[in-house]
């Protein structure tokens, strides 16, 4: 079992995580949180408050848009889908991540090797 991930650290990556999930299709709050837990292999569970504030921020920035939909069980839910600007933002974050990983990795994976 690895040490626990600092939630403050990983919270900085909640936006690309959500966008990644929404790239696979529109989805709603709890489903997105389940997918994030699944994709992270159970190592990260996002809090509802973190998820909602991220959705609100992403929507304000035009990266996702919300729409109401009634699920099969008759429950009304707010769904989110990614916008073209959201796709672009996600890709930019992916490129930034590659660079970050490369730079930080030089210091964290065998210094000076």
């Amino acid at each position, binding site marked *: 079992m690895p040490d626990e991930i600092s939630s403050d650290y990983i919270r900085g990556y909640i936006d690309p995580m959500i966008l990644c999930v929404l790239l696979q299709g529109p989805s709603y*709050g709890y489903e997105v949180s389940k997918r994030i837990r699944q994709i992270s292999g159970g190592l990260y569970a996002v809090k509802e408050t973190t998820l*909602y504030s991220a959705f609100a921020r992403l929507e304000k920035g035009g990266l996702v848009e919300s729409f109401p939909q009634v699920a099969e069980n008759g429950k009304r839910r707010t769904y989110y889908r990614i916008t073209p600007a959201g796709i672009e933002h996600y890709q930019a974050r992916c490129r930034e991540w590659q660079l970050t990983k490369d730079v930080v990795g030089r210091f964290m994976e065998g210094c000076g090797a």
Partner: protein
Amino acid sequence: MDDIRDYLGSVFSKLPQTPEAHRAKDELGQMMEDKYAELLAQGMSEKDAAEATIAEFGNPDEVLESLGVKPQQGRKRHPGCVIAAVLGVIALCCVCWVVFWGRAEADPHAGSVDATIAEDFSSVDVHAACADVVLKSGDVTQVSYSGAANTSFEYEVQDGVLRVTQQQTSNVGVQASDGIVITVVVPTTVELASVGATSDLGSVDLQGVEAARTDVSSQMGDVSVSGVDLSSATLELFVDMGQITLDGSAVSPGTVVRGTGEKVLAASAQMGDVNVTAL
């Protein structure tokens, strides 16, 4: 379930009753109800499920911040500020309404388009938000478009560039590119310095249109190039998720130089595939 509602009620009781706060409460409630229902389905007792749901809810201050409210200041707000904020929101809505309404009214090409272009040009630049783009060679220059709701479509020749642009004009409705096609026909007699075609959600298909520099890309769709003489060309082929096929065989992303490499073809797809077949 009542425990969850009470908990949320107490979190939000400190807040001004704004639509944002109401929505936040509603959506957090949806998420908590879903989690609660799943825990029950897994065999947990109602009491334990409610406790676990509340325990894992997170820090309420996070939500307050996203509503632009600092908890300790929430009640001290001067009524004048609230009125000013409400007036500001109303003014903003009016502006948005005018902008979107004005655009929809002024857009001359919202429906289907089938036009012949007479002006001269030496470059083509197509940008689609949610349409498949087809560029092909023919006898005369033509632009056609199968219109869609909530999109604008414009074309013009300016400074020697044939510019074709499709945009989404509102955030509701059509988003898939299904069945929306932009076709641009360019005569083989036109010597082109550059051709650029990109689609955010649709595919890009270039057939037999030759240019000194060609840039084709798509974020979600496939990109294909065929019928182009690439015997002396630099091919810059990139994909993020899909595959690249060059003359029928799979290749890795990167640059391929053929002959003197003077012609440049850049083709990239983020989610889809890139297929290039030389003449």
